[in-house]
């Protein structure tokens, strides 16, 4: 059969840099043939794949010989052009859909993925079983390196305080950490720590009850896992920037809760205190002092981690003050001796580790 389809062609066989110039012929069936004064080559039409389009030429490759290159002029007779593999531009998916449509679909999927990622801590956090959270917490901080103060009297006082603000059968693990910061944290795994600095500046046991109740609130409302997931998501986004040991315990301590979570924890604290007949005026006094000392803006001082992520101290003091029943007599939550035992707990524990790293 006479070959109806022909075009000039150049090719490289892929084994040497020598260029062949001649003709490409299609027999109308399944075979292409290349002929030049010095070389001859034939291959199946289905073997040819598109390589790239240049300004005046198109490059094809061969599936079976990846190094082979065929260079054809960009304007090819229509009959032959129909048999050549189609060009691709952006990549298989986009080419199939068209640029506009593909961009639209990608945008919708991306927005959905971002929304899922951003909201995941809120809906996923509370659904993670408590036992998992406990394991994660144990893996992250363990026993806090022996920096938790223990004396028999102090432990008893803390247990009594906890009894008032944590109604659950299985109590959170509470402790006083041998650190001088005025701070308190709820760690993953239902571990609540009052820092000794906060205990030292407390003027009454009711103040400590308020702070403890608030942190227990974070644990019971599952805020910790939510915050942990948020932190984890952030560190994925900032991967690399957040390297090394900088993001250690203090990364956890400064782990932020949302304003709503803080309100929930405060509500929880007030409800427990009302239930156990603990005066909220102590907590109110604490926040008033904080407002005096550190100013009343919502995040006035980044160093005061616990206060920074919490609603304005003045506003919170008022909420606690309003929660007090008019004219009611509250019994003291701890005796003088018990409160004193809490205050001297770290000083009198001979085995506690110093927190010296920072």
């Amino acid at each position, binding site marked *: 059969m006479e070959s109806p389809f022909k075009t000039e062609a150049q090719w490289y066989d892929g084994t040497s840099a020598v260029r062949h110039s001649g003709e490409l012929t299609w027999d109308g069936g399944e075979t292409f043939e290349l002929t030049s004064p010095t070389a001859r080559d034939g291959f199946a039409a289905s073997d040819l794949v598109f390589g790239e389009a240049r300004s005046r030429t198109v490059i094809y490759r061969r599936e079976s010989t990846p190094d082979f290159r065929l260079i054809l002029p960009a304007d090819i007779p229509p009959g032959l052009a129909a048999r050549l593999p189609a060009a691709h531009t952006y990549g298989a998916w986009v080419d199939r859909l068209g640029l506009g449509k593909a961009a639209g679909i990608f945008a919708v999927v991306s927005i959905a993925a971002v929304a899922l990622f951003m909201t995941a801590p809120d809906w996923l956090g509370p659904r993670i079983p408590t036992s998992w959270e406990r394991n994660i917490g144990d893996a992250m901080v*363990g026993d806090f390196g022996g920096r938790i103060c223990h004396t028999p009297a102090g432990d008893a006082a803390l247990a009594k305080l906890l009894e008032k603000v944590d109604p659950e059968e299985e109590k959170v693990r509470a402790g006083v950490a041998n650190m001088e910061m005025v701070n308190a944290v709820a760690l993953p795994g239902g571990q609540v720590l009052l820092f000794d600095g906060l205990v030292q500046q407390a003027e009454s046991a009711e103040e400590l009850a308020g702070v403890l109740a608030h942190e227990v609130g974070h644990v019971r409302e599952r805020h910790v896992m939510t915050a942990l997931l948020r932190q984890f998501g952030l560190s994925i986004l900032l991967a690399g920037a957040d390297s090394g040991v900088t993001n250690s315990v203090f990364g956890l301590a400064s782990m932020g809760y949302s304003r709503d979570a803080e309100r929930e924890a405060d509500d929880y604290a007030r409800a427990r205190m009302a239930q156990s007949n603990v005066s909220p005026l102590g907590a109110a006094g604490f926040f008033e002092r904080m407002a005096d000392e550190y100013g009343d803006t919502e995040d006035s001082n980044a160093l005061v981690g616990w206060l920074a992520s919490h609603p304005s101290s003045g506003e919170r003091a008022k909420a606690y003050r309003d929660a007090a029943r008019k004219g009611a007599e509250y019994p003291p939550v701890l005796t003088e001796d018990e409160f004193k035992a809490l205050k001297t707990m770290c000083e009198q524990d001979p085995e506690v580790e110093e927190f010296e790293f920072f």
Partner: protein
Amino acid sequence: MGGSHDIDGADSAFVFEGNWKDFARIALPNLLLTIVTLGIYRFWATARERQYLWSRTRFVDEHLEWSGTGKELFLGFLIVLVLFGVPYFGVTFIAQALIARGHEAIGTALGVLAFASIFYLGGVARFRGLRYRLSRTRWRGIRGGSDHNGFVFGLSYMWKNIVGWLPAGLLIPWSMTSLWNERWNKMSFGPFAFETSAEPGGVFARFLLFYLAPFVLFVGGVIMAGMGMLAGYGVGGEDGVAIGGFLGFLGLILFFYLGLGLIAVAFYAKFYREVVGATRWRELHFTFEASTIDWIKLLVIDAVLVVFTFGIGLIFLSYRHWKFFMTHLEAGGEILLDELTQSQTSTAKHGEGLLDAFDMGAI
């Protein structure tokens, strides 16, 4: 039709024939797709850009070809993520847990170890980035590559950099040229290896500018600040002195940073002229002719382009830099086409290493 090419000085061996309008037709859809895919498309975008830039670059009588794909770059990225990102994350997690438990020393040591491994892998990535680019660059159907995997180079990269920095940075020119030689001597194109013998002596004088210039700049800056104060006094008495002094101080800081930037450019200009000039392949020798002024022009126009297009100009930087390299790169000598046969180096099925995953420059 084999024969040979004699490359003489009349025509440049490397000619770039692209234009920015054609490039924009690639770069703008790339930008759109990269945004709507939250950055995932960037691997395909990179491949498309390189395909354009390579194919519009002529070496003697044939265009280059970029045969890398977006998919393999994406795969390379995933491999880096799984093989290195996840263990790195694990080690830093363990380090933090140890510190929280009071084992500060071990925890910190682990953190340092994680940092050292990143340093090492940075060296391996530099090697592999270049190997990948050569293995995906074709000319007349022939590609480059390397028989080495870069693990030894990673070690050299660590110790040579440390030795370079130790004596107040004085050996940096040595470490840079020596690493260039070590890397390029292990690369090949077709059947023939590259050979380089760059000497640190050639760039050392420029490097000394880093040490001398701060003094010169400081004295100049103090004079400027003093003149500012005097001028301020002339305009507004005592208050004028303060304002004039402040402006002078600002000038000093600007002068200082600009000055150091200029020295860095001057050094790199010289460095590239030296190392490319010391690189040979078979009977070919290469030269790179960009002067300090050329580099400054490139960078200033880069900055202007980015600032005045509110960042969109960023997408043209790869175009501008490629054009810059190709315009100033020259080659001379002879190529025997008959002996230029296909490279026998093995090629990876994916983009190699961090460099290409994060698209850092390989040259």
